[in-house]
Each structure stands twice: as C-alpha cells, then as structure tokens.
C-alpha cells in the first residue's frame, strides 16, 4: 500500500517534470533549432530544392526537385536512377526499401529482369551491369547512382542529345563525389543535377 501511495506521489511529481520537459525539449529546442536553421541554412533546412536550371531555391513552386531526392525518369535521353521500392517509384510519401531477403525468389527474378533490361537499353553485356542498377535502395529515394552505372549510360545520353561522349563524361565527373575524406561512404553521382547539366549542355 505504501508503495502504491509513493508511486502516485512520484507520478504527480513526474507529471510536473514532464510538462516542463515538454515545453523545453518538445517546443523550445526544436523551435530554437528551426529558427537558427531557417536563418543560417534556409536552403538545406527546406529540403535542398533546385530549379530546372540547377540553381538553389526555397520556393517549392519554382523547384524542379530536391538535390537530395531521386526522381522517376521517363526520358530515354537522360540518365536513369536506381530501381525504387517507394510507391510507384521515388514517392516521398511512401519511402520504402523492398525489404526482400537475399534468397527471396521475387528479388532474384527482379534482378534478372532488370539486368536484361539495362543491358538491352545500353547495348552492353548483362555481366557489365553494376549492382546499384539492378537493386532498389533502402529509402527508395536514393538521389545517386554509382560512377560505374553513370559511365554505362554515357554513350546513349551523348547520342540522344547530340553531345560528344567526352563532354558527357565531363558532366558526369562534375556531378560525382568520391568518398568523403577518401574513406567515408562510397563514390556517388547525383542523377538530378547531372540530368539538369545534360539538358543545359544540349541547348
């Protein structure tokens, strides 16, 4: 009985502490960080949006996408992103990885199919298609592809846009980031920024 009484007494004190914590940590802290962020880093804080000519914006009505979020590509003159398991593809309202395991028949079939498709599209052997081209990312929103997958697409993109392969390779290099400090993560090419650059060069 004494313990129950003590528990109630502590719960009452706990409620007072929780209310204070909610004000400080639940409202004060995020609002403070948001306030500083909106002044100091407005572009990043609002989703790293870019316009169709590649310049930064915070206005969604001007934006053609986010530099951090991949997009579905239906234009065979441009670079393709990785397969996506987010909704019908790159749907930010349903971020999702396939969650299929390494022995799952559905995944194995999908990889076979994608491999054949990419090989036919780029005119290369199936064995030359890199892993990221045939696998869905964790977020379903991966804005990047590997340098290998980009390089595989150079010939097609160059031809479709009347550019030399050397020029397109140069554009790929401009959109490529190596491992941070030489060791962190993996090399990656930003597909949206690359496609914007290709469109501008083709003009």
């Amino acid at each position, binding site marked *: 009985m004494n313990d129950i009484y003590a*528990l109630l007494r502590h719960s009452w004190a706990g*409620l007072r502490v929780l209310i204070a914590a909610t004000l400080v940590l639940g*409202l004060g*802290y*995020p609002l403070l960080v948001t306030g500083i962020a909106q002044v100091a880093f407005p572009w990043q804080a609002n989703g790293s949006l870019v316009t169709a000519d590649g310049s930064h914006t915070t206005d969604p009505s001007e934006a053609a996408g*986010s530099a951090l979020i991949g997009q579905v590509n239906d234009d065979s003159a441009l670079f393709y992103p990785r397969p996506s398991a987010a909704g019908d593809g790159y749907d930010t309202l349903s971020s999702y990885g396939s969650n299929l395991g390494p022995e799952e028949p559905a995944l194995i079939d999908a990889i076979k199919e994608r491999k054949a498709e990419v090989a036919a599209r780029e005119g290369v052997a199936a064995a030359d298609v890199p892993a990221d081209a045939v696998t869905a990312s964790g977020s379903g929103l991966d804005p990047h592809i590997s340098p290998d997958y980009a390089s595989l697409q150079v010939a097609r993109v160059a031809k479709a846009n009347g550019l030399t392969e050397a020029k397109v390779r140069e554009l790929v290099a401009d959109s490529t980031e190596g*491992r941070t400090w030489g060791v962190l*993560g993996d090399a990656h090419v930003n597909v949206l920024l690359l496609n914007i650059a290709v469109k501008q060069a083709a003009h």
Partner: protein
Amino acid sequence: MNAVVAAVLQIVVLIAALALTVPLLGRYLAHIYTSEKHLRAEKVAYRVLRVDPDADQHWRSYALAVLGFSLVGLLFLYLLARTQQWLPLSLGFDPFPSDGAWNTAVSFVANTNWQWYSGEVAAGNLLQMAGLTVQNFVSAAVGMAVAAAFARGLARGRGQGDRQGRGRVGNFWADLVRGVVRVQLPISVVSALVLIASGTMQTLRSHQTISTLGGGEQTVTSAAAASQEVIKELGTNGGGIFNVNSAHPWENPTPFTNMLEIFLILIIPFAMAWAFGLIVRDRRQGGAILATMAVLLLGGTALLTWAELAGPGTAPQLAGGAMEGKETRFGEAASALFAAATTGTSTGAVNAMHDSLTAPGGGITLFMMMLGEVAPGGVGSGLYGMLMLAIVTVFLCGLMVGRTPEYLGKKIGRHEISLVAVYILVTPILVLVGAAVAVSFPAGPEGILNSGAHGFSEMLYAVTSAANNNGSAFGGLTSGTPFWNTLLGVLMLFGRFVPLVVVLALAGRFASTRPLPVGAGTLPTHRPLFVALLTGVTLVVVGLTYVPALALGPIVESLS
C-alpha cells in the same frame, strides 16, 4: 582506393574520434553524477516544480520515481497520439488506433522506438516534437540515471570517510535533469546545426507538391528532422522521422552525416563506461568494461563488413554486390558499420534495410541485439547490462576456485546472484516466449513478407528487437496490426522496466554492504585476462541461449 582498405580506414576514423572524446565526456559524466552542486537554472526549476533534488533516495524510492515518471510519460504520449487530429501542426493526420498508440507510447518511453507507422504520413509535427522528441531525451536520461545510481551503489564505502549507504543510491530527479540539461541538450543543438548545414531538413512548413524535371509530381514532406535525428542517435533511441529512418536523404544526406550519426550513437554508451571507473574511484575498472564492449563491437563490425562486402547469397551474387536496401552514397561498408553500431547499442536506427542484408550479415545484427545490448549497449542500460555480466563472470570464477566471489570488494552472495540471475533471464524469456507466441497464432505469421527461413527471421528479429529495447526491424514484417502492436508493446515494457528495477535493487544492496579488503584470492577485474573472461562469458551465457532460434532463421539461410 580499394573498397576493403577504405572500409578499414573508415572504422579507424570512427575509433580515433571516439578515443579523443570518450575520456573527456566520461570525466564530465562522472562529475555531473557525483556533484552536489546545482546550476542556477536547475535550482529555479526544482523550486517551481516542487521536487527535492537533494534527498539521497533509498533504491525503492528511486525505482518508484523512475516508474512514476515513465508511467506519466506513457499516458501522456498515448493521449497525444490518440488526439493529434485536434491539435495544431498535425498536418491533417488521423489519430493513432488504440493498439498503435499503446505500442508507440511504450516504445518511446522504453527507449526502444520501434515504429509500426510511417512518420511522414502518420505522425504530425506536434506529436513528433512534443511527444516523441521529448521521450527521446528523457527515456535516455532515465537509462543514464539508473546506471549512475548503480555505479554510486557500488562506490559507497569505497572511499575514505565514506559511510555505508543503507540502500541509498542518489536522487533520480537531479540525475534526470542533469543528463538532459548538461549533456544531451548542448550536444544536440550543436550536432543538429551541423546536420542541417550538411543537408538534413528542419522545417515546420506543411507538405508541398513540386513538379519534377520530367513533369511528374513529388511531395516535399515537412519535418523538423534534424532536431529529432540528433537525439534519436545520441540517446540510442532510433525512431525515424520518416519511414526509412536514417536511410532517408533528408535525415542522413551525406557520408559525413552518416559518420557523425554513428559517432553520436556510440559516444555516450562508451563514455558511461569511462565514467563508471571514475565514480568507483578506480579508472582501470571502467577501462576493462569499456574494452570488453569495444572488443564485442569490433568483432561484430568486422563480421558484418565482411559479409556485406563479400555479398554471399543468390541475389547479391547475381546483382554483383549486396546493394539491395542500401544507399549509393553509403555503399556496403558504411551501411555495415551503421548496422553494427545500431544493433550493438540499443539504438535501432537504420541507414540500410536490415531485412535485405546478406544472410550472415542479418544474423549478426540479430546476434548483437541478443547479447543483451551491451556492446556498448544503450545509454546507461549498456553499462548496467555489462556490469551484470561482470558479476556473473566473477561468480563463475569464484565457483571454480571455491571462494566467495566479490566485485569491487562487494560480496556476491546468494541474494545478489539471485537478482543478477533474474536480470540475465528476463530478456531471453521474453524473446523466446514472444517468438513462440508469434508463431503459434495465425496473426503472427500473417505479417511476414519473405518466404522460408527468412520469414521466421523477420518474426524472431521483431521480438528480439522489442525485448532488448533496440527498435530496428526486418522491415518486411507488417507489424501495424493489433496482434503485433500488443505483443511487441508488452515485450518492450517488461524488457525495459523489469531489468531496470532489478538493477536498482542490486544497487541498493551494494550500497548497504561494507567492502572487503583486496586479498590474495581476489580476482582482479581490471586486467586483460578479465576482459577476455567477460567477453567469453557474454558470448557463451547470452549467445548460447539463442542458438536454437538462430539456427531456424539466419543460420539455415546462410547454409542454403
């Protein structure tokens, strides 16, 4: 550069960052959990809130304060989730169903942060901030407080002029407030700004639709992501703002932010071990505990990195790499490192889908959790978990040489070892009974996505994650059902609070006992030999409990 060399150097960068900061933070933690002085702002807060921060609480009173505070947090979060449709900043989302609100309330109060819902379409900004972010802070501070109370219990009577504690272990309110105000909050503000500068989102706008380069539509989902992201990692919480957690580019945009997040996950659990040595006034004791945690984590990291880079299994071999469920900017190595850190601690954030890891890789993430979250474990809970195993180790060694065992001069008698036994047994019982319940009812396997052994692994992973308060998932499992929400809620609740009360009971017991002088027969608990023994005991005692269950899932999948 060769991928393996880069992977190794990436781990070296992390170790260097931790080696530089852990002793500093550890010293600071030891100070704040032993100092009698309050900050001026704290004094004002204590007066306004009418709590006594100076009473040296008996362990029972301390435990009841922990439980009372957590109970209120649970009820508050439940109400918030059930009523968010009427509250501002909720983005027009519906209320959580009752089973879902129960699951989420327990989950965040128990420092587990299992998520059955997709944040971007279910949890409004007010619920995320005023509900979830708050528990991200305080549930972590509770873990740190209990670990500090345990360390003080062991320390009582060890110094000159110290009197026995008569079961007294310190003041919960002061521990709670200090953990938040003096440790978590400053680190969070600074780290959040670094994340935002690197691209993490932090906005309170509503969702906006944009038209894409190809003329399609895409939604810019709105979230105060960075502020929650930081404390999610720092407090080993793990609940993502978005469905895909730290794989989402708006949460974790670059390889640098990825490394920062891994660093934040590991810094407090390791620093608590360092602080432990200082609190018991023998730095080497903390060093031995820290070394054991590091050995286990490094082993897990090495195996996971190997598994993901080698990419065994039909799908990875066919694709030419284990990239399913992984982000290009992280690649296999940084994904494996994150996976090891998040399961070695009780964090449960993910930057790659664990369900799509290779069979041995997924098995290792499961095994890391099954160790009981001690490598280095959750903030605070990792330390007290490892200390329980240290007591088991001295007990086993004592049996071998026929001496009454002692740890830091405190005798391990029948009463003490009984409490430790309860601690060691609770989580495996929850996991195994939970798994048995899940396979016995049709509603359990209904949620499975993958076929065969991997499908069983999804369920085993869920119950293991819940009972160990990790919170990561083999995400293919559809867990947003009344069955899973209820079951996992129960596992999370008992998995958190039963061990926690046992730890405080033991702390009270130790605080009351006079330390024995070190004798010729005392087992030294600060030497490499003890680190080896403790590592062995952890792997054997805890690991073996689960081998039959693991054999049905990842082991059989690895061999197929």
